[in-house]
């Protein structure tokens, strides 16, 4: 058992995978000697050598394209994009090829790879470093999109992502990289992808969230409890494919649902969850579904970012609303 932060859990999972699977290779910008700008690949270069931990030239489409070629050859690339805001040059490679290679060759060539990227706001970063655009990837057939929200889930989900035979976009909410420490057992145990995690049980309202926003959601649930409201909190974790069964089971019990995510509202993953609830859970609902999300604005530069990111107060207000 070690008590570690989420970014340390990422490093531990990478190290475990590299130790136990010689085909796992890590590359990206500044991931080798520097250990990554967030230190997520700290010491891996020293431990596993320059053959398996590589600094690439500075070109994101190239990082994705290399990973596709290497994966098709049977390696298991885990490539880092330094920030999600810089992943867009790789979009064509990810959408047109990584997501499609298995399908378009009818399984002859496959893409067992992981694209990691820190994402989201809240660390007073420069412009273009704070967006949450996970929905762009969740829209694409052939991808899986995973977002951890604690050290233990980062460890278990990353190991599952690396073991997965298909391309996984693994988005790490950097605001909570070092927010809390948690005991984890470094034994290589993976957590299931395709499954939500019920973090807190409650009978009055279902709070559905993922990533960093889960921390405000949990704080809101604490405060609501002191007001006599029992909120159930679900960490979606894998937003694609979406474990809707767990969400529906919860809403069928509580009859009320608030979805909380940091990303922009329109066409966000919250919209998909709300649509699924409307299709399959309408008769369980005793109040309209509400969303507490980032606004449909550009993610503001850091002076205003706390006004964009869903706050505990906004979540509590939404819950109060659906309980009325």
């Amino acid at each position: 058992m070690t008590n570690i932060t989420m970014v340390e859990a990422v490093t531990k999972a990478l190290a475990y995978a590299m130790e136990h699977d010689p085909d796992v290779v890590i590359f990206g910008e500044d991931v080798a000697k520097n250990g990554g700008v967030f230190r997520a690949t700290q010491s891996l270069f020293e431990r596993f050598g320059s053959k398996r931990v590589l600094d690439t030239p500075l070109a994101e489409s190239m990082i994705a394209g290399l990973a596709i070629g290497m994966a098709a050859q049977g390696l298991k690339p885990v490539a880092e994009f330094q920030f999600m805001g810089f992943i867009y040059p790789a979009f064509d490679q990810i959408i047109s090829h990584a997501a499609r290679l298995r399908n378009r060759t009818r399984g002859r060539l496959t893409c067992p790879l992981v694209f990691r990227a820190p994402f989201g706001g809240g660390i007073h970063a420069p412009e273009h470093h704070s967006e949450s655009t996970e929905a762009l990837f969740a829209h694409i057939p052939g991808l899986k999109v995973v977002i951890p929200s604690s050290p233990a889930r980062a460890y278990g989900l990353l190991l599952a992502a690396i073991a997965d035979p298909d391309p996984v976009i693994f988005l790490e909410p950097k605001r909570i990289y070092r927010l809390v420490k948690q005991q984890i057992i470094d034994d290589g145990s993976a957590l299931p992808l395709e499954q939500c995690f019920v973090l807190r049980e409650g009978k009055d309202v279902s709070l559905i969230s993922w990533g960093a926003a889960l921390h405000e959601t949990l704080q809101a649930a604490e405060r609501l409890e002191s007001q006599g409201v029992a909120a159930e909190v679900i960490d979606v974790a894998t937003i694609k494919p979406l474990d809707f069964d767990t969400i529906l089971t919860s809403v069928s019990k509580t009859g009320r649902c608030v979805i909380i995510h940091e990303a922009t509202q329109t066409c966000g993953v919250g919209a998909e969850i709300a649509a699924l609830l409307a299709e399959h859970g309408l008769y369980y609902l005793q109040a309209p579904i509400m969303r507490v999300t980032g606004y449909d604005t550009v993610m503001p530069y850091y002076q205003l970012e706390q006004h964009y990111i869903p706050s505990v107060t906004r979540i509590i207000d939404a819950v109060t609303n659906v309980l009325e």
Partner: protein
Amino acid sequence: MQFAIRYHEFVNVEGEFTQDLPEMINNRALILELYQKMVLTRAFDSKAIKLQRTGKIGTYPSTLGQEAISVGYGKAMRTDDILVPYYRDYGAQLQRGVSMVDILSYWGGDERGSCYAGNTEDFPISVPIATQNLHAAGVAKAVQHRGEPRAVLTTLGEGGTSEGDFYEAVNVAGAWQLPLVFVINNNQWAISVARDVQTGCETIAQKAIAGGIDGHQVNGNDVLAVYYVVSQALEKARQNQGASVIEAITYRLCDHTTADDASRYRPDTELQIAWQNEPITRLKKLLTKHYQWKESDEDALQQDCYQQVEHAVKQYLATPRAPVSDMFDYLYANLPKQMEAQRETALYYGETDD
């Protein structure tokens, strides 16, 4: 420091040698084989266009006039080298376990056409321009990682060399000394945009210099020159001596695809001149003058190619359509349970929709 791009050619339009042949290509059997493969490629290509015109396949990019490139580099590759092509490479693919039926199926709208029974590692035809060059760099990195004496060859058109992915691939090929060869089909046209509008570079090959790798120009209508230059570049790659860019200069005698009408933008006189330079006639002249190739040999070859193509077309036309379930069954290794209902819906309507 001096930078130079060499130009390579052995056979001119009259079918005469422009220089003595190096030993490795001074071989009648080889020259004959290259000729036969070009004739077969053209026979296939011309049939494919007819199939498109009669609605038997969809939009199809022809390789007319550019056969020397794919046939030449295809012959230069070893079986265990790996090809990461674009979409005018039939002359090579047909030498590498990709069947005519595969190619017709692909352009006939069937993904099974990229599931080559005869080749496990080559990449399928790539449509998004120059993206494949980066896959090739990744494949080359994997080969290098395992220390295997194999080379990777990737292709693109001259228009594709304006893409960022091409430059990024050339750059990493130089930075990591990858066992990778880029073959550029410079057919002078990127749909309607002429080569001189595409770039201010004097040669396409010189783009290699910025990446720190070798650049060569070759007469892309001279199959011997293509074969020779690519053979050397591949061998260099296999020995981990670095990557190369080879610009093969030819002319697109066809439209961009069957959906294009080049007469809208291409001067007819230019096309007439280009026909004088095409690759098959010059080699036939060479074979006739220097290697006792007779009209009866030619007739027999044409007949043989015709039969091979007809046989493949028959097989293609008799292939049943893929089941509707295929669109779900190869998306992931295991279909997520969330998608089972959609699959059932597709199967249900699949019985009635047509």
